[in-house]
């Protein structure tokens, strides 16, 4: 009579399935689980941070033992770049002033970057359904939901779930991501959707006759109020007009990439002028 004891009864399974279904229902239909999820995610944070230590130590030691000549060379390049950027800033300040005046005429509100905070990537989730990152900044650093995240001077994505000391970022190429963009060359505004393939977005809502070419630069249009205007987003890589669809199929490659750099930055925005109060 040992065999029956070694089996699991269907009642057991039914109980667990029921618990799982209730959990899923609560998670989708109501916000009850948001706070408990937050706590559980915080429990997972120490593991992720601890796992990040070896790679951090490796990079640290690599920096220590890097050759002096190499560092000097890099320093020289950075100085040159800095000078170029300073010159650009001088131009930019003038342009910004002009632009503000024009915007005032147009009665639109332009948001500008107030300050920013660098963050380090601690885990990458790139699977069939989502392309997301986890970084080592959270509510204790003032991060909030739907905050703009940049990398390499271009838009990377936005924060989607914020923990105490880590935050999940949804990248532009994620299935569930959409960002309002504008074509710099023509000024056409549209939406860029994630495709689920790393580094690729698509523009599905452009009419057949739209003037768009491979190589066109897309920047954020600032519509919707989540992202500031003018951040580089993607470069058009393929434009297909098949003659069957009334729309043109456009794919673009995102400019920010996480392969080259493990540092991303959160930015805080402030409206340049207040919205008109009713």
């Amino acid at each position, binding site marked *: 009579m040992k065999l029956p004891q070694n089996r699991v009864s269907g009642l057991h399974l039914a109980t667990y399935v029921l618990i*799982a279904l209730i959990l899923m229902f609560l998670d989708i239909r109501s916000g009850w689980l948001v706070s408990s999820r937050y706590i559980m995610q915080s429990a997972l944070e120490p593991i992720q941070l601890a*796992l990040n230590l070896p790679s951090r130590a490796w990079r640290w030691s690599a920096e220590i033992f890097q050759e002096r000549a190499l560092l000097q060379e890099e320093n020289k390049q950075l100085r040159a770049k800095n000078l170029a950027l300073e010159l650009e800033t001088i131009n930019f300040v003038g342009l910004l002033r002009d632009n503000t005046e024009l915007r005032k005429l147009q009665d639109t509100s332009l948001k500008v970057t107030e300050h920013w905070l660098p963050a380090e990537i601690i885990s990458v989730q790139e699977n069939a359904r989502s392309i997301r990152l986890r970084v080592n900044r959270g509510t204790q650093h003032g991060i909030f939901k739907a905050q703009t995240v940049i990398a390499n001077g271009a838009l990377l994505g936005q924060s989607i779930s914020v923990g105490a000391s880590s935050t999940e970022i949804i990248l532009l190429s994620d299935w569930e991501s959409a960002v309002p963009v504008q074509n710099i060359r023509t000024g056409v505004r549209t939406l860029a959707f994630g495709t*689920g393939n790393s580094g690729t977005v698509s523009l599905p809502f452009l009419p057949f006759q739209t003037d768009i070419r491979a190589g066109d630069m897309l920047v954020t249009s600032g519509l919707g109020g989540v992202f500031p205007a003018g951040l580089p987003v993607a470069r058009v890589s393929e434009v297909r007009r098949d003659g069957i669809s009334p729309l043109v199929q456009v794919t673009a490659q995102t400019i920010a990439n996480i392969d080259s750099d493990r540092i991303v930055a959160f930015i805080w925005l402030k409206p340049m002028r207040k919205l008109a109060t009713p």
Partner: protein
Amino acid sequence: MTSKNPSLAQMILMILFAFSIQILSSIFFNSFFWPNFPSLLVLYYCLKGPRVVGIGFSFIVGLGLDIYGSNILGQNALALSIFSYIAINQYFLMRTKSLLQQSIFVLFLLILNETVLYLIDGWTRQATGGIERWLYIAPSVLLWCSTAMWLDHSPSKKTLV
């Protein structure tokens, strides 16, 4: 028959280890073909011996996967519960079979597991993804086979004697 059951501490360590591999792999090389270690761990314990673990164990690992993967809470828990229910109940049938037959069974279980996840994604109107989400299954089966051969912890003919 007298397979030594792992202690609770051992199991917790193994869970931590499986999740560590999963997180580390995501940092260093991100591949669709990377096996899902936590679910393989559940499979391992289900087929290690009669009633080494119950469904509760897989449920907890599943919840961990949900939290780590930011899925709907309970999605992986549900899939892994069904998965382990079948695995545990088929244990006695399984141990009389050859390694090849066992790996077909494992393949079936993993496909079932992913199908449940896929259906839940679809029903709750989440992104269901393309072919990529199924790619990890084949390497998982291969890994299970090679590990079973190496450890010989799998329910094989030898342990029956």
